[in-house]
């Protein structure tokens, strides 16, 4: 840094003009879908039939986003509030039965608040009921 380089104004002119001819670095997002890396932590999916009701996930969740309710013997209903969840994946790690799975889906914006509350319940009898989609 000691030698004084020749200081001339507008140093960026060549660099800036080059990018006139290059394709802009913009991704045409909403029109072409953009995918996050496959192990990205996005929306959580709960498989209620694997849940044994040990409530470790409720204890470890830093944002109190997941609540497990008992709706029958050995049947549990999991409710995740996507507005409270911080997508840290701690519940995925501490669940002994691997009942919670994390997907890279990140487009969760909603206009009204309670659409963010997603619940997964295993109706008695049906092995894997489709979670009622938000």
């Amino acid at each position, binding site marked *: 840094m000691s030698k004084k380089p020749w200081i001339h104004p507008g140093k960026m002119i060549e660099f800036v003009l080059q990018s006139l001819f290059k394709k*802009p*670095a*913009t*991704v*045409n*997002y*909403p029109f072409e879908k*953009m995918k*996050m890396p496959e192990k990205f932590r996005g929306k959580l999916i709960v498989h209620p039939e694997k849940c044994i009701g040990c409530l470790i996930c409720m204890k470890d969740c*830093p*944002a*109190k986003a997941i609540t497990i309710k008992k709706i029958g013997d050995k049947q549990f209903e999991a409710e995740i*509030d*996507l*507005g*409270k*969840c*911080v*997508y*840290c994946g701690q519940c995925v790690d501490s669940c002994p039965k691997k009942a919670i799975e994390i997907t890279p889906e*990140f*487009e*969760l*914006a*909603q*206009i009204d*608040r309670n659409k*963010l509350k997603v619940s997964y319940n295993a109706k008695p009898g049906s092995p894997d009921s489709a979670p009622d989609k938000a």
Partner: protein
Amino acid sequence: MKVIDKIVHWARLKSPWILHFNTGACNACDIEIIAALTPRFDVERFGVQLKATPRHADILVCSGPVTRQIRDRLIRIYEQMPEPKFVVAVGTCATSGGVFQGLYNVLGGIDQAIPVNAYIPGCPASPMAIIDGVVKLLKSLEESE
């Protein structure tokens, strides 16, 4: 006057100027909001411009769980914005307080202080999620005309 209203409505949807306000956030969402302006995402394609004063802005983009000290400034900023104004809560903290729920100095979510039109969860909400949220807000305004 039907045509005039249609044109003004079209113009309102095509040039949503945003004002960014951080109400006590950890500034991850704020950096993602500004990252949405940079070349890779470039929200100027939708006419979005980051404006400096509430007088020029249409959409107030807030992040953060509204600490007690900033609650009044948030209300004052919201009041200073001229009509047809909307509020977008960016990030889990703005939606519900996120990990900071229950702390003594935090009110937990923007909707505790001002009415909110769109919620974008995510910690932080990535620039793509923010664009998706703004687009959903504009689409819902289009239908509700």
